[in-house]
């Protein structure tokens, strides 16, 4: 590791009643890298994302983003600081059109989001940028389609475009290729590679060939603990990792 660390956790613990879902996880994500978090189902990957974005409170430990302690920050604040997450199941606004989905993300920086007396037309200024973002993920033709009508792969692409609309410094992607057909996976991998330029990506991914393709660094999680860390080549040969995957297949 030579780059600067942008996101770091120290001894992160999350306990649900008796059950310890995340048990002393220390992560260092390097600025500008694509970092994969892998591990069997139930390892605690999504929980780590929930902790990083403050969706659930931390039991013990510390989270630092760009050197600042964000362990007690508000979830909405995390996004404003430049770290935006996606969800394991596609997170779109189903009854809104594709372009309206993007506008939700774009309108925040106008600073008029509490203005209930202002007309919606004031948002039309954002449409050009929204259409641009849609084009970037191959959805230009679908800008006026109500999102619920889009096939699953396209919904995930739309979700990514919405995240990009905030121009985040760090993107947290939770299983971006889950439930996708082969073609869609290829498209999303290419897309992630492209949008990762100049950003940091921390992603949970089950598809190991995607991880191999994309990740600069891999952390393996099992039963809430870090089992191994290194390049894909290194961790894929680690006997402990092999055992965890065979012992509890994903």
């Amino acid at each position, binding site marked *: 590791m030579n780059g600067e660390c942008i996101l770091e956790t120290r001894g992160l613990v999350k306990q649900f009643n008796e059950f310890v879902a995340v048990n002393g996880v220390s992560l260092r994500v390097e600025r500008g890298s694509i970092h994969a978090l892998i591990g069997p189902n139930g390892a605690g990957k999504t929980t780590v994302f929930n902790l990083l974005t403050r969706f659930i409170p931390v039991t013990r430990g510390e989270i630092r983003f760009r050197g600042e302690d964000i362990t007690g920050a508000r979830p*909405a604040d995390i996004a404003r600081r430049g770290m935006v997450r996606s969800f394991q199941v596609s*997170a779109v606004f189903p009854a809104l059109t594709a372009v309206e989905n993007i506008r939700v993300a774009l309108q925040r920086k106008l600073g008029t989001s509490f203005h*209930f007396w202002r007309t*919606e037309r004031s*948002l039309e200024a954002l449409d050009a940028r929204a259409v641009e973002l849609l084009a970037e993920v191959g959805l230009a*033709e679908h800008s006026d389609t*109500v999102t619920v009508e889009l096939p699953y792969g396209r919904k995930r692409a739309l979700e990514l475009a919405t995240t990009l609309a*905030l121009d985040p410094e760090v993107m947290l992607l939770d299983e971006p290729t889950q439930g996708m057909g082969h073609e869609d996976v290829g498209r999303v991998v290419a897309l992630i590679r492209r949008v990762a330029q100049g950003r940091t990506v921390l992603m949970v991914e089950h598809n190991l060939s995607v991880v191999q393709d994309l990740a600069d660094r891999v952390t393996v999680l099992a039963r809430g603990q870090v089992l191994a860390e290194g390049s894909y080549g290194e961790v894929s040969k680690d006997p402990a990792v092999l055992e965890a995957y065979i012992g509890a297949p994903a």
Partner: protein
Amino acid sequence: MSRLRSLEALGWGVLVAVGIVAPFVVYPVFAMNVLCLALFASAFNLLLGYTGLLSFGHAAFLGAGAYVTGLAAKTWGLPTELAVLSGTAVATALGAIFGSLAIRRSGIYFAMITLGFAQLVYFLVVQMSWTGGEDGLQGIPRGKALGLFPLDQQLTMYYFVFTAFLGAFFVIHRAIHSPFGHVLRAVRENEPRALSLGYDVDRYKLVAFVLSAALAGLAGSLKAVVLQFASLSDVHWHRSGEVVLMTLLGGMGTVVGPSVGALIVVALENYLTDVGSWVTVITGAVFVVCVLSFRRGIVGEVRALVARSFTGAGRKRSSSSPSSSG
């Protein structure tokens, strides 16, 4: 799209025209009652239909508006407009207090907390002396509009209420179609996603709640002036339930649906008074049949029908570009 727009504008024109001639067709007091409850239901719908929050305590705001307006007009002798504003202001303040405590919970817990607060208000109204207890607050003077036009004239009173209704209705319409309304829809559609995009979801819900409480309070204030009394039925939980019924019947999440629902419920209650307590049974039956046969409510179904006939399959909101499915 533009055809759909002009159809919408036509719809608005018809509604305003109906509102203007209504007092010549039906009893003005009946029409005013409908307007007040239509406003109440529309305020409620801002929360249920556009924010996704089911409040089961909106009677508190209607009732607070009614009682405070009565107090201001009768005891303090304030001019009608100021009395109505006082009622609205108190309902707004209550909304801010209840809202900030209830908003942290969602679903059934949110509904129960709002119900609990409303019961608290009911209890206070029963206990305090100035409210008249079981008898209600009676003999509220209507006063004069702008200090000039006596509101004892039914028609003057009607247009006073109608003007306030239009103003409030415009506020609701505007709020729904504002940057704020856009965020509300996002919150309703997918709250965690809105949060992850950096929206402080609770604050948006709170503003919607306070806005809704304020308008519900205005409805109660107007009602007190029209009927010249405020009664326990305005703060009773029956009212909180009735407004859910009106909204679902007319179509939640549609702009005019709640008003249509209010019209139907008030009409049923008025024209079925002969059958006594069977009113409740009949309204209940109508409600069940409606919800079973058209889940989107009356206006919701009509709108879906119109949209479908305009855009073929009704899938796309505009016909700007042909879609190639992939």
